């Protein structure tokens, strides 16, 4: 069944290479080829959806490799294909004036292929190959951005490679402990020697892909420098899909872990820290795209918490939240792209118009996606967030409180931006409609409507996920579920009251949340660049390297100075002792004889 290999992996790669090397006079052809490729990918992901296909091939790397297309991978491939299709349409219009557009298309196809490869393979080495190779298109897609974007691309490359090396080592260990390179054959108890270390390494690699701390800091930078389609396709879709896919595989297939075990608690704590810190930092951002990127990191935290609870319910919730997140966050990034094109920037200081009047459709899209993001009832993410709350509270109520605080922060942040972008007084008095072109409008409105439709008809994604994970049984009685919903609504009301009350008083809609965060010095954390784990890491490496450099100089000094000086000294001394005087020579002879007698 090599047709799957051709459609999902080989054709996108070949087309990507072709697009890169085709001369500029074929630019129209490039656009057509690009759109055809992503459309075909989308079509076949729907066509093959739900089928279970096992096949092996000798084409890739001339190794005998097995691939497995089954429910989970087909679902992920489908979600990826739809987002790729929407992003492709958007990017054709968004990047039409950019001279690096075609490079972006080429590398986007490579990224699509590599991601499909990860989802399809049943071999650990191939998984690693595609996983690590994804760095190359990521690097290139950021580097085509603006204002020395290559520096961000390098940061991304370094952070990703460190995380990928963790994954690589984890995969090595799991292969050695599990005794097989075939993914579907590995199922080891966490208590086996080496298994825990393998789990930690793979867990780090997988969560880093979603942007979990401390591997997150490239995402806010990339949001400013890289093109919007990158943020939608890579950060929102690819990274989350891969991360959740691997995390589900880890807890469901690779390792046998007990619910409520220590490792589960630690992993959940890891997710909680990520979501709290990221959501706190999101509050302070002055750029809409940067806020979205921090929020995206925060949402990864929710998914990590859910999966780390090890329950079927948690996995169900994480997968549900993953699609919800991809839909509403894609829409919000599309909105950011629309605003950027109309206003030139998404920085708060450069928004001159009342966008509610100049960009009405973008405004409606924002409201729909923003409501989903905040977890408003009857919107897409509401249902998944409630499920995540349930999975958290089943382990500990402390986790639940942290998640609720995170949700409050998200709601406050998005409401604040709603006011700033769409309800503040215009700086320019002339109001003229600036709505974006149809190509950009279509993906925005489709994802926006999806936020509402999949919220109302949440049984559609629910049934899809039931087919993959199995029927969730619920963790608690319906009373607990009702209480959780009431609390969620109260959190939203609190955020809204906070916003409305403080907006009347000042331009900031952050209100008491900002005061509270400042009290805990989070503002300092935001301003202080040295908090960036990447900067700390590079600083440490530089210090270490400088020490090594000094050691090397010392070694060189030994060879270049000490050895020659010593040799010269000995040579000069021996020369002095052989000055032609017969009595001196006789003395040497006598001393020599005495020496021999002493030795023997």
């Amino acid at each position: 069944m090599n047709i799957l290999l051709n459609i999902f992996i080989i054709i996108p790669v070949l087309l990507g290479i072709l697009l890169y090397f085709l001369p500029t006079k074929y630019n129209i052809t490039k656009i057509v080829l690009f759109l055809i490729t992503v459309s075909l990918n989308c079509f076949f992901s729907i066509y093959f959806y739900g089928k279970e296909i096992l096949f092996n091939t000798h084409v890739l790397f001339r190794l005998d490799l097995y691939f497995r297309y089954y429910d989970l991978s087909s679902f992920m491939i489908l979600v990826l294909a739809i987002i790729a299709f929407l992003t492709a349409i958007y990017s054709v219009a968004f990047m039409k004036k950019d001279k690096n557009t075609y490079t972006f298309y080429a590398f986007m196809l490579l990224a699509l292929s590599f991601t499909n490869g990860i989802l399809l393979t049943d071999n650990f080495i191939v998984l690693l190959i595609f996983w690590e190779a994804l760095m190359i298109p990521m690097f290139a897609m950021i580097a085509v951005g603006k204002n020395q974007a290559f520096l961000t691309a390098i940061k991304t490359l370094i952070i990703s490679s460190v995380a990928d090396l963790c994954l690589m080592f984890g995969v090595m260990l799991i292969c050695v402990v599990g005794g097989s390179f075939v993914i579907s054959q590995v199922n080891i108890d966490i208590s086996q020697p080496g298994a825990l270390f393998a789990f930690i390494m793979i867990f780090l690699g997988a969560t880093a892909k979603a942007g979990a701390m401390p591997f997150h800091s490239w995402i806010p930078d990339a949001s400013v420098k890289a093109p919007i389609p990158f943020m939608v396709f890579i950060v929102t879709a690819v990274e989350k899909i891969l991360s959740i896919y691997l995390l589900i595989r880890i807890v469901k297939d690779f390792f046998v872990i007990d619910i409520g075990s220590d490792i589960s608690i630690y992993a959940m704590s890891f997710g909680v820290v990520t979501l709290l810190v990221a959501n706190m930092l999101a509050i302070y951002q002055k750029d809409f795209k940067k806020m979205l990127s921090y929020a995206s990191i925060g949402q990864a935290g929710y998914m990590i918490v859910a999966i780390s609870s090890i329950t079927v319910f948690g996995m169900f919730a994480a997968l549900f939240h993953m699609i919800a997140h991809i839909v509403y966050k894609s829409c919000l990034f599309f909105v950011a792209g629309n605003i950027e094109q109309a206003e030139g920037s998404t920085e708060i200081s450069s928004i001159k118009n009342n966008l509610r009047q100049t960009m009405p459709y973008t405004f409606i899209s924002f409201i729909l996606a923003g409501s989903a993001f905040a977890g408003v009832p009857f919107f897409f993410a509401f249902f998944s967030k409630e499920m995540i709350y349930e999975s958290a509270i089943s382990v500990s109520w402390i986790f639940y409180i942290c998640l609720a605080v995170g949700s409050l922060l998200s709601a406050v942040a998005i409401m604040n931006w709603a006011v700033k972008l769409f309800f503040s007084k215009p700086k320019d008095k002339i109001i003229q409609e600036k709505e974006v072109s149809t190509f950009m409008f279509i993906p925005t409105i489709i994802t926006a409507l999806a936020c509402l439709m999949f919220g109302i008809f949440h049984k559609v994604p629910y049934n899809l996920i039931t087919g993959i994970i199995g029927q969730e049984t619920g963790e608690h009685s319906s009373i607990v579920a009702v209480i959780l919903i009431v609390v969620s609504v109260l959190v939203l009301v609190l955020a809204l009251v906070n916003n409305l009350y403080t907006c009347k008083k000042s331009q900031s809609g952050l209100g008491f949340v900002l005061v509270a965060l400042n009290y805990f010095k989070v503002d300092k954390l935001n301003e202080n660049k040295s908090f960036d784990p990447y900067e700390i890491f590079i600083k440490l490496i530089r210090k270490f390297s400088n020490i090594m450099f000094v050691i090397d100089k010392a070694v060189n000094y030994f060879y270049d100075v000490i050895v020659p000086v010593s040799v010269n000294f000995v040579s000069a001394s021996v020369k002095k002792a052989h000055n032609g005087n017969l009595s001196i020579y006789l003395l040497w002879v006598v001393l020599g004889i005495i020496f021999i007698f002493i030795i023997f």
Partner: protein
Amino acid sequence: MSYDILLLLIVLVPVLLSTLLPVIAKFSVALRNSFALLLMLIPMFFLCSILPEVLSGNIVKFVFQFPLGINFILQADIFATFTAIASVLVSTIILIYSFEYIKHYENQNEYYFIVVLFLGSMMGIIFSANLIFIYIFWEMTALASWRLIGFFREKEYIRRANKAFLLTAIGALFMLTGFLIIAEASGSFDLDIIANAGITGGLVDLAIVFILIGIFTKSATFPLHSWLADAGIAPSPVTALLHAAVLVKIGVYVYGRLFSFVIIPSDSLRTVILIVIAVSAFVSGGIAFVEKDIKRVIAFSTISQIAFIFLGFVSGGKVAFAGAMLFILIHGIAKAGLFLCAGIIEHKVHTKDLNKMGGLLKYMPFTAIAFACCALSVMGIPPFAGFFSKFLVIIGSVMDGNVFTGFAFIICAGFTVLYLVRLFTKIFLGEEKGEFVSLSKEKLLSPMVLSVIFLAVLSLGFGLFFGDIFAIANLAANQMISI
């Protein structure tokens, strides 16, 4: 022609006929260059001729008896033939690159003579199955590298060439002492007899330590590495030849040949060796991150990567051995590419100082792409071939129970990414320096640019067809274990 004669010719043709090169130059420089290339291609052709026989599991052997047990034995198994092909392949590309690079300098006759002699000596080491002849060829390479490093006649350069020679030659004397102890313990200098003797014990460990000193000086392992970075003053093809393709690989090859399966070091000694190579990898990786000279960065990178090859051979398992063997080929190609790219850059901007470079991507797009491909291979980013060899070496060591060493080398792999990304950024990205404005855009059709592109293509190609070369490495590992 029988296989044993072919094997003899692989060594003798370059060693003996290289002396004709200065004579031919009296008639025509072009003829000399062509003849030098021919002296590379002939061994390659013969190697390819014996390859099917070797791959079928047979060992090709040439024996000539000398008195005192110093027998001239050449022996071609899969491991040796594979390493030889890797060396000749990279050396040939370096030679083609030299045609353009070296043509402006003096002492060209000496250069070509020594380069070909060097390759012949390398073939001698690879195929020799007698410790004394390994030593003789070993010293021949030391002499050749001495002349090559001292290609430019400035006083400081000569001092550095002397340093390289003295360090490696003194190391070789230690190695000879070790060989003598081994011969005393086993009763012969012949590797076959030594292998069958199954010698172990404290004295053998002492001999191994002596031999290791020689190996570590040749393969530039901390703290015996300092000559390698200093040798960066040599012309770029020379540094590529010495640092990447041939010279530094001699040490690791001899380690693999002697100590992986023939003479087994004790567990405690093996632990010490693992610590030494891990320290070497860390120290050199750290230095490469802060060095300002482009060639020194690549040289320290070599020291770091050599440690990975050692890891493969020291681990003692089949997978690690196959990985290390492939590492020799793949790293040789990629690192030669980096050094040759450095040569093109140096020719273009007349400096080796990284702080004086930047934004060269615009003027040297082909070199930049080739450099990036080779760097990605050395970093171990798939689908480039370097990923596979690094993966095999580390997983092999984990399989052999060296989990923490494997983890340490994962961190070293992280260092590799750091310093090579920094290197690429400093050279090709960032702000253009004012003095580069007058630079013309490079042409694709020049031997130098084509050479590096070919090496970049090989770095990718060996990755895409990894299964085939892995099959050969696997056969070699099985053959070595059966010894």
